[in-house]
């Protein structure tokens, strides 16, 4: 089995993630979409690493993706919780002012 199935899967995940981010108005669901995109990218990297491109670099990069996703999720959730405390919703359309 070549690298193609992995790449196609990763493409599907990427598009799904993008669609989620675009279509949903809930901040936390958008975060879920972002996780899809990040995972698609990481999957790509690992697949290439398995199929002989870049040695261990792909896996190391995927590790960084996980780390960054963790950081991103923490900060994003903290922001959303703040947002929620102020506007009592996580609907991002309501966040149209630059102050609380």
């Amino acid at each position, binding site marked *: 089995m070549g690298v193609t199935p992995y790449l196609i899967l990763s493409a599907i995940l990427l598009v799904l993630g993008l669609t989620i981010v675009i279509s949903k108005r809930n901040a936390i669901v958008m975060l879920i979409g972002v996780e899809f995109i990040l995972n698609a990218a990481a999957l790509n990297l690992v697949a290439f690493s398995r199929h002989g491109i870049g040695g261990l670099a792909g896996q190391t990069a995927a590790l960084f993706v996980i780390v960054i996703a963790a950081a991103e999720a923490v900060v994003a959730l903290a922001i959303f919780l703040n947002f929620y*405390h*102020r506007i*009592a919703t996580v609907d991002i359309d309501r966040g149209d002012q630059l102050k*609380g």
Partner: protein
Amino acid sequence: MKEIEFQYQSDLHQEGEIPSDIRTEELTLNMGPQHPSTHGVLRVVLQTDGELVLQATPYVGYLHRCAEKIAEKVTYRQFTPYTDRLDYLAGMNNNLGFALAVEKLGGIEVPARAEYLRVIFAELNRIASHLVATGCYGLDMGAFTPFVYCFREREYVLDLFEAVCGARLTYSYITIGGVREDLPDGWIGRCREFLDYLGPKIAEYNNLLSYNHIFINRTGNVGVCPPDLALAYGLTGSCLRGSGVKWDLRKATPYCRYNEFDFDIPVGRGEKGTVGDCWDRYFVRIQEIGQSVRIIRQALDKLTEGPTQAKVPRAVKLPAGEIYYEVENPRGQLGFYLVSEGGTSPYRLKIRGPSFCNLSVLPVVARNCLLADVTALLGSLDIVMGEVDR
């Protein structure tokens, strides 16, 4: 004094000023009437914000059995069994309170032996009742073992009761004019053996529970009820003494020859926190067990031979008049307000249930505390729903 390090976020709720930039999600939580730590069928409605309880409102009445109304339809003697069911953990004390009220109004003299027997059984029942309170408090705090230990010891008290009156929960032993039966053979020896046995056990409870670091952290500084608040809300019994007020009817207005006995009134001193916190109320009960042991020992020594029952007709008739009589129950002052029109049954009987008054302080104290603190507070108030709802 230790400080609770947790920083309560929504303290401002109490003043009613919620800052505009913060919106809290309040959740109404229905604690009870079927909940493991409401000690019966109490229902407490909690306004919570996360783990924080903003307000706790008790709703009572699930165990209302019209005891006061029943009293108007039955004779004085017939009402004694109903008093057993008020505070069903302290039947002897309830019997005693009612009997004393009737005797006082009817001018009935009780023989000396009966007086001492009343003291012995009232104090034994106080021990049993406090053992339940202590054990259940451990259970409320998540420690199961003290509960079983306390119930083990309580069994021996109940055995003593059973030996003398055949009942283990609803005794109707202390009746108008004295007590129902004299002691069986060898009872005094057994009672002394139990008292000797109980002493070391109190130290055991202290090691296991009272001085347990986790337990102190859970109860010290929690549910603080200062003396003025306790007085304002009419708290009595160990709740009042836990708040540092040295008040005990057995000393203040001695009945049943309590003035002949040498005992102390333990009060809360804020050893593990603030005066009037849950730990103080709890520890007062532990100390009262020891004091009761002292009283029983003295009473056993003083026990004289003689009749145990005054000459009272089967159908007790009281002269017209009214009386309010209070006794010191394990849970506080149990009061009977008795109005007689001269018949064989009261015109009106109003009962002051100490648990009811003690419970009334809950919404004041259980503000801005944690969910687990409500359990700690309820347990330390030591309510019995049979008495709250009557």
